[in-house]
């Protein structure tokens, strides 16, 4: 493959990767785009204005999605970090990790369907806390898996070093463990945030249609065949992660392990 050919191909691939974003943004700006037009008949910012109005509940969805995802990311990262240490050093590591892998690959929506009863029983169905908890059940094991690679013998030795030198747990965490893990913590926070941010099926079941996250809104608009608003909600859904991915990538790049 010639060098020039390679660059052309790279250009094509870049276009393909960028195209969905451009298209969705364009769709969100349209109000009238019927067959066979290849370009919208009307382009306007009117659709975006409804974000600021109370109609449609878009602002509510945006806010509640951010709150839920931040909570899920925070708790799963924190708890995952603490738990993975125990598991990594434990004798039953294999068996315990099995439990971690399972929710991660099981279809979240089927899992939610089986657990729905318990959420109703504990008055958690249809509540934000319930949705956060349900998403934690998926994200927390994932965090455990992410951190399992962190607890190596080297870490163990460092910890023991701290103890021998007279430090306590808090100090070892603060001065040694957390700093080394910063990159990983951020990656985990970000990835668990995305898991929650993108979740639809589980949120629809546990939230009973009352917790209207952005993904639920996109689906609703698609059902209503209002594709312009669906594209608008989709923009709100994909643009923040796209920006965050840029930030995250810099971090991953910096902390190569």
């Amino acid at each position: 493959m010639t060098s020039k050919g390679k660059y052309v191909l790279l250009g094509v691939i870049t276009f393909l990767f960028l195209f969905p974003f451009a298209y969705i943004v364009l769709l969100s700006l349209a109000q009238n785009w019927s067959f066979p037009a290849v370009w919208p008949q009307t382009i306007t910012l009117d659709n975006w204005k409804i974000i600021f109005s109370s109609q449609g509940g878009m602002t509510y969805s945006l806010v509640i999605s951010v709150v839920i995802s931040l909570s899920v990311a925070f708790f799963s990262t924190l708890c995952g970090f603490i738990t993975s240490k125990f598991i990594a050093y434990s004798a039953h590591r294999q068996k315990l990790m099995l439990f971690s892998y399972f929710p991660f690959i099981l279809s979240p929506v089927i899992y939610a369907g089986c657990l729905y009863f318990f959420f109703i029983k504990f008055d958690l169905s249809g509540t934000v806390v319930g949705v956060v908890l349900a998403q934690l059940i998926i994200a927390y094991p994932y965090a455990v898996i992410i951190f399992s690679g962190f607890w190596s013998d080297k870490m163990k030795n460092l910890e023991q070093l701290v103890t021998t030198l007279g430090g306590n747990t808090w100090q070892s965490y603060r001065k040694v463990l957390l700093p080394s893990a910063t990159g990983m913590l951020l990656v985990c926070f970000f990835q668990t945030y995305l898991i929650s941010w993108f979740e639809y099926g589980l949120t629809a079941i546990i939230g009973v249609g009352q917790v209207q996250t952005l993904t639920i809104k996109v689906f609703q608009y698609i059902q209503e065949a209002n594709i312009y608003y669906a594209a608008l909600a989709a923009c709100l859904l994909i643009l923040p992660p796209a920006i965050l991915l840029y930030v995250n990538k810099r971090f991953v790049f910096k902390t190569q392990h």
Partner: protein
Amino acid sequence: MRSYFVILIVCLLTVSCGSERQKKDDLRNLSWDEITQGAEGQTVNWMMWQGSPYVNNYINNYVIPEVKERYNITLEISSGQGNQIVSTLLTEIDAGKEVSDIDLAWINGETFYQLREINALYGPFTDQLPNSDYVDFDNPIIKYDFQKPVNGYEAPWSLTQWSMIYNSEKVDNPPRNMEELEAYVKANPGTFTIPNQFVGMTFLKNLMIEMAGPEALSGDFDAETYQKYSSRLWEYLNRIKPYFWKDGQTFPSTPAAMNQLFSNGEINFSMNFGTRIDNAVDDGTYPTSARVYLLESGTIQNANYVGIPKKSAHKAAAMVVANFLLSPEAQYKKMQPNTMANNTVLAVDKLPENWQQKFNDIPESNYAPPREELSARALQELGPEYMIRLNEDFRTKVIQQ
């Protein structure tokens, strides 16, 4: 130690979320004023089908602000179709839940039937609503919901008649019975389809009535009669299925999807609960050449209602909302072009003079036959078991073939 702390926090959170729901008991003995007072400041969670932008518009831009202003009730909508409402309430019963998540539900037909079977509805309550004075509860369309007596367990909300819509530019003579439909799809393959949900299933019910005549299918469900006519129906459908849109390999799963196909010319027909399509034509959902028509043997007309789950903690507020929905103002507004634009459940002759005038002055639709013609061809709904069976059998006997 810390694990207990965590558990404590979790408990606190759950309790704090649950404390908002106070329990209110028997409302039968209260006067309407007392009920309105008790409803003040409450939040009502209304689970309803949100598949129609016009309904959503009416609710979001009229009903919600009005009940807030008039009664200080916060109305929240959650999305859920009939079977979802039933399965939610059923799981609540399974879990022994004391307080339901749902305070009001938009229901009719088989949903109402199933909710009564599992004893999930509160009632009777409609006689306590002041606006029920304007309703003729002896009208069989309102008194019976899919042939089952309502007995005050759900409050009527709207009246709709199922109709077909065709594109007058592409079709000269729309098919009005099964024979004509068969001839049409064979001559024009790929231009017709059925949505795989309640609007489409009602079309199937219309066809069964065409085959059997309305008397044969009315009253209680009879498995033999169903078997006899449904097998003819499946035979007919499987025969003409290859001439449907996408060769009958797939069917649109929502009316909105079907309307999209209709509006971009992929198919020439759509179906709807409702006979006024003015709003849809005005906002471009339908082409201006769209016209409403009925089948020769008539089409089903039904009422839909709002019900209150037995375990709702905000029954008073729910009743106030139900009453408001039944008010002449709300019903009149609902008939306006850019809202639901379907018919009122109120008996116009029971209304005060000025309202009678207003209702009678509502103009005819530009795109449909006149109202008398429509009501002359209105058929009564069949028992709920038909809907349940048709849903299943359509899947096994037609889709999976």
